[in-house]
C-alpha cells in the first residue's frame, strides 16, 4: 500500500465551519438568555450580541481564508483524501458563514426579550 499519510485530525476540516456556527449560535442564545434574565439594558445587550456575531463571522472568515489558501497551495501535492477533505471543508466554511449571517441578522433589529 502507499506510504502517504493523512492524519485523522484532517477529518475535522469537514465539520470546522459548522462547529464555528454552532459555537456562535450557543453563545448568542446564552448571552440573550442571560441578558434578559438579568434585565440588561437593550442597547448594551444588542451591542454585545453584535460584537459576538462579528467576532464569530471574523473567525469563520479567517478559517475559510486559511483552508482555502492551504488548498490552493497544496492541492496537487497532497495525497487522497486530503484534497477532498479540504474541498468539503471549504464548502462547509462558506455555507456556515452564510448561515451565521442568517442567524445574526435579527440581532440588528429584533426586540430582545419577552
Amino acid at each position: 500500500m502507499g506510504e502517504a499519510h493523512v492524519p485523522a485530525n484532517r477529518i475535522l476540516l469537514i465539520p470546522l465551519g459548522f462547529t464555528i456556527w454552532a459555537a456562535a449560535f450557543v453563545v448568542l442564545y446564552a448571552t440573550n438568555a442571560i441578558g434578559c434574565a438579568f434585565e440588561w439594558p437593550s442597547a448594551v445587550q444588542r451591542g454585545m450580541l453584535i460584537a459576538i456575531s462579528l467576532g464569530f463571522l471574523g473567525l469563520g472568515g479567517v478559517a475559510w481564508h486559511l483552508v482555502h489558501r492551504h488548498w490552493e497551495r497544496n492541492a496537487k501535492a497532497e495525497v487522497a483524501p486530503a484534497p477532498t477533505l479540504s474541498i468539503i471543508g471549504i464548502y462547509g466554511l462558506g455555507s456556515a458563514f452564510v448561515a451565521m449571517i442568517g442567524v445574526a441578522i435579527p440581532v440588528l433589529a429584533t426586540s430582545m426579550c419577552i
Partner: protein
Amino acid sequence: MTDLTPETPSPIRLHKQLERIWGTGPGLQRLAAVNHTVIGKRFMITAFVFFAIGGLLAMLIRAQLATPNAAFVGPELYNQLFSMHGTVMMFLFAIPMLEGLAIYLLPKMLGARDLAFPRLTAYGYWCYLFGGTIIVVSMLFGVAPDSGWFMYTPLSSQPYTPGINADIWLLGVTFVEISAVSAAIEITVTILKLRAPGMSLNRMPLFAWYMLVTALMMVFGFPPLILGSILLELERAFGLPFFDPERGGDPLLWQHLFWLFGHPEVYIIFLPAAGAISTMIPVFAQRKIVGYHAIIAAIVALAFLSFGLWVHHMFTVGIPHLALAFFSAASAIVAIPTAVQIFAWLATLAHGRPRFDIPMLYIFGFFVVFVIGGLTGVMLAMVPFNQQAHDSYFVVAHLHYVLVGGFVFPMLAAVYFWLPHITGRQSVHRISVPAFWLIFIGFNLTFFLMHLTGLMGMPRRIYTYPSNFGWDWLNLLSSVGGFILTMGFALFAVDLILQFRFGRHFRRNIWKASTLDWAMPTRPTSYAFASLPKIEERADGIDPDRLGAELAAGKGYLGFARNNRMETLAVDMTTGRLEHLVVLPNATYLPLLSAGLTGSVVLCTLFKLYIGAIVFAIATVSSFFLWSRTTGLTTDSGPVPVGNGEFVPPDVEVDGSTPWWAMVFALSANGTLFASLIFGALYLWLVAPAWPPAEIADPGFWLWLAPVAMIVSSIVARWATGINRQGGNFAPALFAIVIIDGLTIVLISLALSALPDPTAHAHIATVAAILGYGWLHAAGGFCFALNGLMKARGGYVSARRSLPLRLSVLWHDYTAVTGVIGALLIGAMPMLIGMLEGVR
C-alpha cells in the same frame, strides 16, 4: 519475515470453511447469533412488526375521528392510542429500521466481513426487542403511556399521571435508546475503520457518508433525552423536583431536553433514507451521482443545523423574542442543504438515462410528499404562522409529510431495491404497482386534508369534536384515506411474502448496481466476502460482476480460513491504507444474557423493586466482564500475513484499534449527557421560578477531595500504562487505582450525605445529580481497573498488548475532567444564586 500466508483453497472449500466459522447454528443456537446479516434482518423484520402495530393504532385513531361525537374509544384509551402510535413509530420503527438497514448493508458496502463489534450488535437487538415488548405489552394491561410521545411535564409528572404509564415510556424508551446509541457507536467505528483496503474517505460510497453523519448525530443527539428520562424518572420515583415549578424546577427544561433530541431525530430518520436514495438513483439513472462533494457538505450542514432548531417546537411557550428569531432563521436555513440534495438527485436523473422500476416509483412518491412536507416546514419556521398553527392538525399533516415522505417512501423503495439481495429472489408479481398507488393516494387523502382541518382550527390530540365546526367531511375523508393507505400496506406485505415464497431466483446484481454490496452471492453468505477487495476507485463505480467472481475465488485479502477465527481488516481512517487485522468474537449467548439482565433492571425499576434493580445492575456489569474475559491474545503475535503479500499486526497490538475508538465515541456520548446535565442546572438557575432556594446545597470539603482523588487516579492509570510499556510490573499501580476509586466512591457518598433534603428544591436535586454522576463514574473506573487486573492475570496484557490499560486511561481522564467541572459548578452555585438576589 517469511511468508506464512495460508493457502487459498478452492472456492467451494473456502466457502465451507468460512461458513463453518461465520455461520449461525440451527435451533436454539440462533439465539447466539452475532452475525450482521442475521441481526440486520432481525432488526428490520422486528421494526416492520412494530410498524404494523403502530399502523393498527393509527387506524383506531382514524376510526374514532371519522365522525363527530364518536364514542368508539373513550378519552383515556384515545390518549394511550396517540401516545403509543407516536412512540412506536418513532422509537420502535423508524430508528431500528434505519439501524437494521445499516447493520445489514454497511459491511457489505464497505468491503468488510462484519461490523466492528458483533456482540454489541446482538446486545443492541435484544435491548430493542425487550424494551419494545415492554412498551407494547403495557397496552394489553391498559397501562400504556398516555402523555403523548413527547411526554411533556407536568402532564407526565406524578401528580397528573400517578400510574406506571409514564414510567413505562421513560424506562422502556431509555432501554431502546441504549440499543440505538450502542448501534451508533458501532456504525461510526465500522465506517471509520473497517473499510476495504484502498477505500480512502474520498472513495467511500455516499450511503456510508450518510450513515457516518447519522450515527454521529445519534451519539450526540440521544443523550439529552436519556438524561431527561432519567431526571423525570427520578422526580416521579423519588420526588427530586427537576420539573416542578413550585420547588425550583421547570417543565420547560423537559421540553428543551426532549427537543434537543427530538428535532435532530427527524434528520436522523431522514438522512439514512436519503443515503438509500443517493444509492438507488444513480443505479436507475445509469450514471454516477451529481455533486458528490456538495452532497457530503450538505449532509454535514444538515446535521449541525438540525441541532439549532429545537426551539421551533417551543415558539409558543414564552421565550425571548430574539431567541425566537435565532431559531426561526436556523429553521428556514435548514431547507437549503436539503434542497442541495434534492437538486443533486434531480440533476443525476436529468443527466442520466433513467429507467423505471418499482423502487423508482416509490422515489417519485418520496419527491412529491417530502417536498410538500419541507415547504410546510418552512411555513412553520416563521414565528407568526407557527403561533397560529401550533398544536393544530396542520402540524400533524406537516410532520407526517416529512416523516412518511422522508423515511417511509424511501424505505419502501429500499425494500424493493435490496429485497432481492436479502432473499436471492426477484419479484414476479406486479402487486407492487397497485400497492404503491394505494399508499400514495391513501396517504395524500389522509394527510393533505389535515392541513385544512388544522387551518380551520382543529387542535391535535382531541379525542372527539362537535359537528358544527365544519371539520366533519374533512375528517371522514381523512379516515377513508387512512384505510386506503392501510390497504396499500397490506398489499405491500402480501407482495413481500409472495416474493419470499415464489420469487424467481437470479444470479447476481439484478439492478446492475455499482456498489460492493452486489459483489457477493445473493442471498449473501454469512461471511459476506470470501476474500476482501482492494479498492482503487470510488466505491460507487465498481464492477460488482467482475470483482465478485474474483473475491469468491479468494483472490483478495484474507482469502483463507485461519485458526477458526473470524478475521477482517482495519484501515487508516483517512487514506484507507491497510493497518491491522481485526479478530472478531464468535457466536455467543452473552449478548442475550446481558440484555436479559439489563431488561430485569428496567422491570425491577418499573415495579419499584429497587433492591432487585441494584442486584441485576451488578449482574449486568458482571456479565460484561464475561464479554471481556477471553477477548484478545495471550501471546505477542507481531505482523501476520493477510494475503497479497502483506503483513499487518493484530488489533490488540496497535494503538488506534476499534475498541479504543469505540471508547472515544462512547465518552463523547457520555460527555453530551454531562453537558446536558450542566445545561439543566444552569437553566434552572437562570430561568426557573421559585429561585433562589431557601437552603444552599453545600457538600462540605468532601466536594473538593473527590475531584482530587479522580485526578490522582487518572495520573496513576497513565503511570500503569507507562510501566507496562517498559515491560515492568504494573499490577501494584492497578491495585492503587482500585483503592483510589473506592476512596472516591466513599468521598462522594459523604458529600451526598452532607446535602440537605434533595426533594426540597431543584437546586439541591441538581447538585445531587451531579454528585451521583461522579459516583457512577468512580464506580466505572473501579470496574475498569479490576478488568485490567483480570486481563493481566489471564495473560492478555503485555507491553504490546495494552488495550485494557489504555481504555482505563481514557475513562479515568474523562472522569477527572467531568469531576473537576462538576465540583467547580457546585462550588460556584452559592455565588451564582447570590447574583439572583434583587433580580428575581
